[in-house]
C-alpha cells in the first residue's frame, strides 16, 4: 500500500503523532492542518452513511510525491508536507483526508495547505462511492456526479 494511504478512516492517534513529530522541525513556526470528513449528505431522499474510497496505489504515490515537490518549490518556507488519504470504507463523521503543512511562518503554512488540498482534489487518483442508508450506492466525481446506467 502507498505510504500516502491508510485503510479505513484516518485515526486521531495518527494525526496527534504527526503533530508531535513536527516538533522536531525547530525552524518551523507554524503548522496548518486540513481534515476532510465524510458528510452525511442527503441525495434524492437518501442519506449518505459512508463513502468507499478506491485508489490506483502506484499512481497515488507518484502524484502525491509530485504534489509535495510542487508545494515545496512554490513555498520555499515549507519544511514538511504530510498527505494521508483513506482507502476503503469511511463512515459519515469520520476523517478521510489529513493534510499538514509545516512552515517557517504562518502565511506560507496556510496558503500551502489550501493549495495542497486543491492539488489533491485535482490530481490524486482516488474514486469514491457514496453508500446510502438503504445500501444503494452512487459513484461521484469532484464537481460532478456519475450515475451508473441501468
Amino acid at each position, binding site marked *: 500500500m502507498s505510504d500516502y494511504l491508510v485503510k479505513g478512516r484516518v485515526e486521531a492517534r495518527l494525526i496527534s503523532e504527526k503533530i508531535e513529530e513536527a516538533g522536531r522541525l525547530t525552524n518551523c513556526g507554524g503548522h496548518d492542518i486540513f481534515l476532510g470528513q465524510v458528510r452525511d449528505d442527503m441525495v434524492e431522499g437518501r442519506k449518505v452513511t459512508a463513502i468507499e474510497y478506491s485508489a490506483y496505489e502506484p499512481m497515488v504515490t507518484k502524484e502525491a510525491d509530485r504534489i509535495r515537490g510542487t508545494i515545496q518549490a512554490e513555498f520555499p518556507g515549507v519544511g514538511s508536507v504530510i498527505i494521508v488519504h483513506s482507502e476503503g470504507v469511511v463512515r459519515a463523521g469520520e476523517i478521510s483526508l489529513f493534510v499538514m503543512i509545516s512552515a517557517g511562518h504562518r502565511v506560507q503554512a496556510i496558503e500551502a495547505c489550501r493549495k495542497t*488540498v486543491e492539488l489533491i482534489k485535482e490530481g490524486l487518483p482516488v474514486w469514491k462511492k457514496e453508500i446510502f442508508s438503504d445500501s444503494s450506492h452512487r459513484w461521484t466525481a469532484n464537481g460532478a456526479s456519475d450515475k451508473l446506467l441501468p
Partner: protein
Amino acid sequence: MTITVLFFGALSEVAGTGTKFYNDVGSLDELSLRIADDYPLMVHYSYRISVNNEITGENAVLKDGDEVAFLPPFAGG
C-alpha cells in the same frame, strides 16, 4: 504478449471486474477497439487512460507486461 488492464471507479462495475488481461494487443487504439467490443456501455463514460502510471492522450505502442488503466474523473480529497 500480455498486458494488464485496470478499471477504476464506476468503470469497474461496467466491466464487472477491476482487472483483466489482454493478449496480443499492439497499441492503445487496438486495445480501445477490443474494450469497446467487450464493454459497449463504456462509451457512455468519460475517462482518461494511463500506461504504466503515465496518463496519455495519444495512441501508444504497448509491450508485454504493460499496465493500462482506465481512469474516470478523480474524486479524492
